[in-house]
């Protein structure tokens, strides 16, 4: 400990005496307080398990519950087509899903 303190003050004064380096140097090599272990543990014991558990939960939910799609009602504020989309025939959105996204006239697969 004393040796490190002595080295540190020697280094600091040496640094001050010589022209200060313009490059990034590491004045206190062993300073950093082992935060790595904390974040490693948080990652492996909290973050990853939470992700896995929630993933399983979502997977089970997605595969079980399949509600029927809502009945088509021709609301004017939905399925707005003031200008055609710049792809295909211009009537379908970018992630258009024929089963869940009705066109202005109704579902495609009805």
């Amino acid at each position, binding site marked *: 400990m004393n040796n490190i303190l002595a080295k540190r003050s020697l280094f600091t004064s040496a640094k001050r005496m010589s022209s200060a380096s313009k490059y990034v140097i*590491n004045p206190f090599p062993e300073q950093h307080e082992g935060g790595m272990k904390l974040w490693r543990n948080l990652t492996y014991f909290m*973050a990853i398990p939470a992700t896995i558990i929630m993933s399983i939960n979502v997977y089970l939910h997605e595969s079980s519950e399949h509600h029927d799609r809502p009945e088509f009602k021709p609301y004017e504020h939905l399925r707005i087509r003031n200008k055609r989309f710049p792809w295909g025939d211009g009537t379908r959105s970018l992630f258009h899903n024929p089963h869940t996204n009705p066109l202005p006239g109704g579902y495609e697969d009805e």
Partner: protein
Amino acid sequence: MMVVKKHPFHMVDMSPWPLSTSIGALVMTTGLVKWFNQFNINLLIIGLLITVISSFQWWRDISRESTYQGLHTKKVLSGMKLGMVLFIISEVFFFLSFFWAFFHSSLSPSVELGMQWPPMGIQPFNPMQIPLLNTIILLSSGVSVTYTHHSILEKTMTHSKKSLMLTVILGLYFSCLQALEYWEAPFSMADSVYGSTFFMATGFHGIHVIVGTTFLFISLIRLMKNHFSSYHHFGFEAAAWYWHFVDVVWLFLYINVYWWGA
């Protein structure tokens, strides 16, 4: 005779990349407008190519100047840190505008929407399913990237590589899940102002996730090629800052758009 510079600044050698990247950005944005209005995509593709190829070469040169030529002094580094901070702040304002639009329409839903939010006929996502999983994924990736940073500082290479790889994987997992949500969504961008605000906000966020994942992935490659030291690794730090920013934007999105807005 060797050139000696008696100042800590980096006088960058002549480079074509700033000009070509700017030209690329102009051609790309003009191309986007041409695609939307004249249904011709060619200019957009050309613009994208020019921008991507120029950016790649510009950033490659920066890696060369720093790692291999040692031209990044403390002064240079501090300038780049300021630059990254200011850039992220500008991005914050960018997202602020989409949140403004969202609150403008959702706080006082108009009569055409049925004076309710979500509007009549809109079936929003269940915030407790995939959106919650996405939140956990991004928060976890924030933890893992912090693990990476500390392991770089403590010079434990194996830990650094593993945790950064994990962070990238989590980023990809998020993107896949969002793509699935987009595909399964019962509403599109053209479904009232709900769809517009939802997809503009989450869409731009998704683009930022992809950019952030790419930045982290490049950092991983540089880490594996030993470009970083335990006290000089700004490329990685910048990627981590950007990633935390992406995470925070998602938290705002989740709470306001997905949860309150449902």
